[in-house]
């Protein structure tokens, strides 16, 4: 069994608590001094940085929701001068609703280390060829695993997403051994490898797949079709990116890098902290970050934590696969989509905010349809004009969401309503 940082990954509970406490105390002071939100909210609650002495005091701190981050765009939560920052990453979303995360070199290093732990847990060494097919750019997937792979010393293939034939060509020619991408892209690659007839030339042994929900059944399929072990990885831009938690050989949940990110489970309605093992909303506090040290950030992921002994030898607390959301965010093909974004596009384009989002999964790939009700105002006798309007709508949806839905114009009042309230999202995916 190998570890990237064994002393941390196998630390005793007491050692970890102590380390977390020290780091938390420091970060709370840092956040209080540099971020108006924490200063104001802590004053409101009558809490001072000095009141936070250990992890037990964490619950005294205010929770942070994504709305505040959006409102503070872009610099509201920046805790270090820009001259010390070296990178930004950003969540998908509208211009107004984007969240921009800042990183100092120290922050990038710790993020890369988290990803390195994930790669080593998946069996990676400096002998490996790590094939990164996550998107590179503002999305954290590509840069995160890329950095992790560098730390491990593996040969890194910064493939980014798309161009499947070239992906497979490189996979064959450079003998990629570890694949990093979304699970749906892994399934698609497996299919393409099959149809190109090069399955016997593929040297993959493991895959690290995240950024979207996937089922156990899908895991087994990918493992069988690619001849690999498939590992889950979890993360979010606000906290750093992929590598907030990662799966080990046991494949029964993801170890949280809790020396950097303290997880809590709260009741999404009351904000109250729930005991270990109970289901609730996952909340993270960053305790080592410099530029963007979010404390008690609500992920909206519904999840369970466990400290049951893991056969891999790691003592890091484990989180199970998130089993839902406490808000209406959808993750479609790895991209975060809020129904409100679609509403905004429709209203800007002159359509009524009467729509329905239909998400399904066909052959492990998400399908995404937006049904829009036609109105007398938007109707025209000319096909050309209607098609133009439809195209404009598609263009603005793509610009807003980062992915393209299929837009279907439907009859007025044909969208199902339950008790007068329209059902906005139909998610048929069985995950």
């Amino acid at each position, binding site marked *: 069994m190998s570890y990237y940082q064994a002393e941390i990954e196998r630390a005793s509970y007491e050692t970890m608590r102590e380390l977390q406490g020290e780091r938390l105390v420091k970060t709370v002071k840092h956040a209080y001094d540099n971020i108006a939100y924490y200063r104001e909210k802590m004053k409101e609650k009558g809490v001072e940085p000095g009141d936070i002495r250990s992890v037990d005091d964490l619950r005294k701190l205010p929770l942070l929701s994504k709305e505040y981050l959006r409102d503070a765009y872009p610099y509201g939560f920046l805790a270090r001068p820009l001259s010390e920052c070296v990178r930004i990453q950003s969540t998908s979303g509208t211009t107004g609703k984007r969240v921009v995360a800042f990183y100092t070199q120290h922050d990038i290093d710790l993020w890369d280390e988290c990803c390195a732990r994930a790669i080593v847990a998946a069996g990676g060494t400096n002998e490996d060829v790590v094939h990164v097919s996550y998107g590179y750019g503002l999305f954290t997937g590509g840069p995160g695993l890329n950095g992790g792979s560098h730390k491990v010393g593996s040969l890194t293939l910064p493939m980014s997403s798309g161009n499947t034939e070239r992906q497979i060509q490189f996979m064959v020619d450079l003998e990629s051994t570890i694949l990093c991408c979304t699970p749906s892209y892994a399934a698609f690659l497996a299919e393409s490898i099959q149809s190109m007839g090069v399955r016997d030339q593929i040297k993959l042994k493991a895959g690290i797949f995240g950024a979207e929900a996937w089922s156990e059944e899908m895991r087994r399929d990918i493992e069988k079709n690619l001849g690999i072990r498939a590992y889950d990885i979890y993360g979010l831009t606000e906290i750093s990116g992929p590598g907030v938690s990662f799966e080990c050989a046991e494949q029964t949940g993801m170890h949280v890098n809790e020396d950097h990110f303290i997880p809590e489970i709260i009741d999404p309605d009351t904000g109250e902290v729930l005991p270990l093992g109970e289901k609730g909303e996952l909340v993270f506090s960053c305790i080592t970050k410099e530029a963007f040290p979010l404390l008690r950030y609500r992920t909206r992921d519904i999840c369970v934590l466990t400290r049951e002994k893991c056969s891999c030898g790691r003592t890091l607390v484990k989180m199970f696969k998130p089993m839902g959301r406490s808000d209406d965010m959808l993750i479609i093909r790895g991209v975060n989509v809020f129904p409100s974004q679609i509403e905004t596009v429709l209203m800007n384009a002159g359509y009524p905010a009467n729509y329905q989002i239909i998400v399904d999964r066909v052959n492990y790939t998400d399908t995404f349809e937006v049904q829009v009700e*036609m*109105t*007398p105002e938007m*109707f*025209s*006798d*000319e*096909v050309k004009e*209607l*098609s133009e309007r*439809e195209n404009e709508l598609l263009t603005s949806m793509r610009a807003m969401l980062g992915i393209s839905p299929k*837009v*279907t*114009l*439907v*009859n*007025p*009042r*044909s969208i199902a309503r339950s008790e007068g309230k329209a059902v906005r999202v139909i998610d048929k995916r069985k995950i």
Partner: protein
Amino acid sequence: MTITMTIDQISVFVENKPGRLAEITEILGAADIDLRAMSIADTADFGILRIIVSEPDRALEALKSANCVVSVTQVLAVAIEDAPGSLAKILRILADADVSVEYLYAFITHTEGHAYVILRVEDTGRATEVFAEHGVKTADSHEIYDL
């Protein structure tokens, strides 16, 4: 009813769903509306049903109350001889006058030797003028609705 030189054509949004067209024609049937002429324009995603009916106002009302999206467009109806070259002749008149045709469709009537062409042109006024200059008679609304 006032008689006009242009015809009210009703356009109906047709969602791309099996049975939708049947539903629309059923609405008209139930309201006792006679269809005089029709055409369908379609794309991969939706269609536009264009109809000329016996009583446009009542048809509109019936369709609207059944939650159909409708609009009214002024079109011209021209009676032409049911013989080779007659359509070409009127299209030439429009072309020479630089009036572009958005779309057209034709139908044959019970009256022998006679066909009607429904024309949607860019400039209806100008088209009516040049037709008059060339002695082409456009049918008035009464003539078409009461066919």
